[in-house]
């Protein structure tokens, strides 16, 4: 990318103006008398009054000003302003709750409005842009987000009436259990597919017939919709657990974790096998020649040369698989596998949207965090082995 000495950064300018427009015109939040009734929406001036509204806009105007002189110090200032805006985000909601919540209604709850969500969206895009401009590493950005989380944590007592919070308070234990189930299913499926995928990839390299058959089978599996694969495993597993005692003793049955795990495994194998296979096949012949010249045997070459060189690409496979499995596990709630998807489908059934959020937001966060962490790890390993690109799906 060519970096001209532009007189202004149009990206930062456009993003901050878009954020300003959403912030001023869309509803900041809503207050509902109970769980099911739709709340009354409050725009920012209605919720906070004009003085505070103007004060909340100042950092955004500051960002727009920074965009005019895009130098390094200005970018750092813009980053600080963006983080400040993120820190303050729940504060405005808490102030709104304090001013407009009727103390006579203990069931009343505060919902987050479009302005709040969109502000979060625009600010994330600003962070992405500023990170690119300042060439910050992932951990530096992560460090910057620590005070944001701290500020949110400090504001939390003022937001006891937040609808999301109330849904969580009502089912704290169920939430912890669902989170654990979700993580166990994802971890189990990804871990198993890593081991199994490596074994299959090695077998494929030995025998081209296995390679053709394996890829055909895995590609076919991928075209079956996840929903259907979960469903199709119900009957065979119920049949098996009715006839094989030790399987039933393990808790295998038509519904629950067993069909979910098998379906997750099936979907995880293709990206895993493909990446491992590509990684093992694409080692520079010169390197292998050198290793053999040093007197290494076949097994040694595999262990000490091929696998370390293949690691970044394999890790890329782990990243794709993990993100995919986090989403698919949510669907598995439909066949009784538990996990955070349970809240999504319960909430959809009861038309209680805050319950849906309670399931969907952690899933989204998990997917983003897993993607960022595994991506950073793969890039780090890439730098070590001197490669520039990994295999893409």
């Amino acid at each position: 990318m060519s970096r001209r000495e532009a007189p202004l950064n149009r990206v930062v300018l456009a993003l901050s103006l878009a954020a300003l427009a959403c912030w001023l015109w869309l509803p900041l939040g809503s207050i509902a008398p109970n769980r099911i009734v739709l709340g009354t929406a409050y725009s920012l001036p209605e919720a906070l009054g004009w003085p505070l509204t103007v004060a909340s806009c100042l950092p955004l105007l500051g960002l727009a000003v920074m965009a005019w002189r895009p130098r390094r110090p200005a970018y750092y200032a813009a980053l600080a302003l963006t983080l400040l805006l993120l820190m303050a985000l729940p504060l405005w909601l808490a102030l709104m709750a304090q001013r407009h919540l009727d103390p006579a209604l203990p069931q009343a709850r505060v919902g987050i409005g479009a302005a709040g969500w969109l502000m979060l969206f625009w600010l994330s895009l600003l962070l992405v842009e500023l990170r690119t401009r300042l060439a910050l590493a992932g951990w530096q950005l992560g460090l910057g987000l620590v005070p944001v989380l701290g500020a949110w944590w400090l504001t939390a007592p003022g937001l006891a009436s937040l609808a999301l919070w109330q849904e969580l308070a009502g089912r704290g234990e169920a939430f912890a259990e669902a989170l654990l189930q979700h993580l166990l299913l994802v971890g189990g499926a990804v871990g198993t597919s890593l081991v199994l995928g490596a074994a299959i990839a090695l077998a494929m390299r030995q025998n081209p017939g296995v390679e053709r058959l394996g890829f055909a089978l895995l590609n076919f599996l991928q075209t079956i919709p996840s929903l259907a694969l979960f469903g199709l495993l119900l009957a065979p597993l119920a049949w098996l657990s009715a006839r094989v005692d030790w399987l039933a003793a393990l808790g295998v049955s038509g519904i629950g974790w067993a069909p979910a795990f098998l379906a997750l495994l099936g979907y995880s194998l293709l990206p895993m096998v493909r990446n491992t296979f590509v990684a093992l096949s694409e080692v520079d012949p010169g390197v292998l020649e050198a290793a053999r010249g040093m007197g290494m045997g076949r097994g040694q070459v595999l262990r000490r040369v091929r696998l370390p060189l293949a690691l970044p690409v394999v890790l890329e496979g782990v990243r794709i698989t993990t993100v995919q499995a986090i989403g698919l596990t949510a669907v598995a709630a439909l066949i009784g596998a538990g996990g955070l998807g349970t809240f999504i489908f319960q909430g959809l059934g009861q038309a209680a949207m805050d319950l849906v959020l309670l399931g969907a937001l952690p899933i989204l966060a998990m997917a983003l965090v897993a993607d960022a962490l595994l991506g950073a790890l793969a890039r780090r390993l890439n730098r070590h082995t001197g490669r520039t690109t990994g295999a893409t799906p």
Partner: protein
Amino acid sequence: MSRSAFKRWRAPLAWCALLLVLATGGEWFESLLRWSDPEARRVLYPQADLLTLLLRHLWVVAIASGLAVVLGVGAAILVTRPGGRDFLPLVAQAASMGQTFPPVAVLALAVPVLGFGTWPIIVALLLYGLLPIVRNTLAGLEGLDPGVEEAARGMGMGAAQRLWRVELPLAAPVILAGIRTSVTVNIATAALGATVGASNLGAPIIAGIINGNTAYILQGAVLIGLLALTVDSLFARLNWRG
């Protein structure tokens, strides 16, 4: 139709014919399904006939993919022009973030805004399908030999003419490959829409899971699989010609 043209279109035609036979031949399909689940009271999904569900499924995927192509290719073209180049890193990263969002979560988050029905699944598919298109269009346009553009400029072509007559045709195979990935993945993912009340081929699957009826699940799954194969083999022919 000449002999060679028939040969070329044989695979998509065969898949499409099988798809239509299964979607319309209810009676005949029923006896096959009976075999899959002998104990079930009824084996053919009763709420709507399969052809209607198939057409609705296709419709949702077509709208979402159409929007994804317009937005994705459009955005990629804009950020590779001199005027929009500032936005390139942002668009590339936002598209890859879009694919990180699990479709179920997006679907669930779209319901409070858009209500139950077809729109949430269109939004979820649009977000999920954007990345392959944006990534491949960017790769296709950025990967062109600079000499080609130089030559086009030398022939006196303007910016719009260069884009339309040189850059896009040369990048077309890569862009088409991206659209192909996006559409095939979306055909399978669209089934999720049935969980928020969209009526498509996911509906028999959900009904089957709830009632423990394998035959319902099979008809949804088989038709979605065949639809994906039909569309994918169509794209394969397009690529081959391109």
